């Protein structure tokens, strides 16, 4: 697992994009305090998933409002899946495995 920054880099309920080993990864901080990480680019038309709205289950791409499961990366609206990455918080530090 690689450290990518502080959990406080991400406001509660939002997402931010990080570049890790040349990969674009959107990390989301859910309102229950947990974190999720998905590939940052929407497979539909390349929208920025980190700019999408989230709840405890899904992220909704801001461009055309297709939704993906935050835990699995599976599409909830019939699109291709996105990659999901293991991510955890340790002492306020974010770690992601690519």
């Amino acid at each position, binding site marked *: 697992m690689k450290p990518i920054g502080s959990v406080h880099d991400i406001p509660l309920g939002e997402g931010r994009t990080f570049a890790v080993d040349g990969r674009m990864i959107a990390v989301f901080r859910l309102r229950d305090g947990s974190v999720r990480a998905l590939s940052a680019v929407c497979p539909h038309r390349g929208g920025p998933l980190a700019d*999408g709205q989230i709840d405890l289950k899904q992220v909704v791409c801001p461009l055309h409002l297709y939704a993906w499961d935050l835990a699995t990366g599976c599409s909830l609206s019939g699109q291709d899946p996105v990659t999901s990455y293991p991510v955890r918080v340790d002492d306020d530090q974010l770690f992601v495995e690519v």
Partner: protein
Amino acid sequence: MRQRLVVIGNGMAGARTVEEILARGGDFDITMFGDEPYGNYNRIMLSNVLAGIEDEAGIFLNDLSWYAENDITLHTGVRIERIDRYARMVYGSDGSTTGYDKLIIATGSSAFVPPIKGAHVPGRGYHQGVFVFRTLDDTRAMIRYAKEHERAVVIGGGLLGLEAARGLQNHLGHVTLVHAAGHLMNTQLNFQAGKTLQATIEQKLGIDVVVDGMTTEILGKHAVAGVKLADGTVIDCDVVVVAAGIRPNTEVAAVSGLVVERGIVVDDHMRAMDEEDIYVVGECAQHRGQVYGLVAPLWEQAKVLATNVCATNVSAPNVGAPNVSGTNVSATNVGGTNVGGTNVSATYHGSQVSTKLKVAGVDVASMGLSQPERDDDELLEFAEPKRGVYKNVIIRDGRLVGATLVGDNSKAMALIKAFEKGLPLPDNRAELLFDLGGPAAEESVDDMPDDEQVCNCNGVTKGALKACVDGGCKTVSGCMDATRAGKGCGTCKPLVQRIVEWANGGSVEEDPAASYYVPGVPMPKSELMAAIRRHELKSVSSVFATLGGDEDAKSKMGLASLLKMMWAGEYVDERDARFINDRVHANIQRDGTFSVVPQMKGGVTTPADLKRIAEVAERHGVPMVKLTGGQRIDLLGIPKEKLPQVWADLDMPSGYAYGKSFRTVKTCVGSDFCRFGVGDSTALGIALEERYQGIEGPGKMKLAVTGCPRNCAEAYVKDLGVVAIDGGKWEIYVGGAAGAHVRKGDLLATVSSPEEVIVLTGRFLQYYRESGNWLERTYAWVPRVGIEKIRAVVVDDAEGIAAALDAAMDAAVGAYRDPWKERAEPATPGQFRTSLPLTVLPQVPVRA
């Protein structure tokens, strides 16, 4: 022990009822008896089989594996001859006896053959070459025989006869239709409609039609050679199809002692008269004197019956007591049926019969009366014989009581809805018959090819929607969520609804969520607002926590808008509740960059402002500078991280070109310069924008003020448009649109001063903000609420809430802050950090 359920009849009614029972979790040992040697097929489609449009395999609804999967014992080719109501046994034609606890009779009907000389050969059944048109076997036999013969006569000019005539044309050279009454489809159509249909059938299809033709004899010694009519006319033919109507199959009920009139008499619970455990459904049932021969009533009956059968299937002895274990009653609430909330017994109140179909290739829709009955019934009638079009509507006491459409079904769905639901009708009655400047005419879903694109925004085809329904999604909103059809501009929503209904076989499950303000909180807007006030909920997360359970991403933006409207300055802003546009005060573009539109009140600018915009565009290498439709300047392609710098360099207020909010006021030059202008439209437009800038609402609000009725600022097609008219007066139009939907606004009021315009605009917008559904634009909201009601509230203060509306708007105006001032310090960490690899992101050092 499980109760034994026996179903006599394996047609559409019987099988559908069993499906409804299974859907309610009914736990029975089910045995079905079918006269025909097949699984259950769609009898309506036999016309298509005859016409060669559909093959036999395509019309089966439940094949034999369905019975096995659901543990149903099916006896095909067995006719039940007698019911012993006391011993609870049924006796089959094969000598079998079967016991039941609950019995359902769904025997359907048979073809009715009038007493015509020569129709039958003693001891042999029908004369060779004479057919009826009722079953798959009838259809097969007819096709086989017709292929080897030349001329057919169809007796009966009703729906079935017309379909038979049309279908036979595929198999032989010449078809004559003989009808005893004075015009075709005389039970559904009036004389003129019938004549219009006849002309089309004769001219377009080449079928000879004889009306007032009573067939008295079928001629021919060994095989059919012709038919003879009452007036002595002889029509040569070698095939005769008798399609003179149907009669309910009531023999088994009658010999078993049940009450039989025209059909088997049932009560509102779909039970046979005075029988606790015998139910009847479909064409063989007579309910309140009515026997139905169409499929829609049958479906309603099946739901009621299923609910009742399941409700009585309880182990406790007190049968009358409400008990919902294992049953699901909530789904049954369709059309004329009604299921009480606490009592599980469902009742059927009869059906409003309406049909919309293609009869022999001609569109026909009919409902209720075919002609006026009372002196004060309103009749609207339109005939265009050259195109084969006839339409009428009959109105009584402001409600639609009958309608007929021949040759043009474009208004059928709207009329059926108005007829079945008793909806209020437009003042301009002509709108019932024609689309007047509304959306494009409806096309028949059946006719659409599967690959036809329905949602042009998200590229969803009819086939994709059908697949979604077939995959188990039964609600319109569910299919819209799954496919995103109708989630773009929204114009296709009515069509999506019709396709989902069609794919579901005509009915959709009511989605309770359709009435919710947002999907994640189960309340309509007014109820939601009351709850928010009661609990003093000032943040989106507190609404979920108190009213909704789990937070829902798709509900956050709507709730944020509502709370801001309700609490103005007291609203607790949680940034994650905002859509990205509202987080960074710019409109996201396809590549993840943003557009920046500075405010330009009333579309009026200055050389200094233009220079500054030009300099900023140059300095930041803005890829595109474009004029907007709302008379402003758009800087496109700004990366997120550059937004604060661009705003700082511009040092102008936001033009709000991104929110569900007050956008802009478009104006014309007005009286200052224009030689036609009669009012100072620019001054008023600027004043309106000054006051209402940035106010959020259920949808965006685009305004215009134009200085004379030439309407250069397009005020008639704005959410609110103001038109100066001679004499110093101003007209205010509301609910207009010229986007995906085009609508001319309704005149709200004519006032004498700009001050009044400003007050009424605020009051109108506030009323819309408080009662409009999320994302419901004024072009939908105004007709939904009704311009009269809106005028009463906004102009005449009929409900005494004008002062409250004005005060709420004042508070909203007072709470306005220019969002572009939020630039020195980000509101959240990384607010303006890029989310896409447009530029190099902060790279995490890679450690080996």
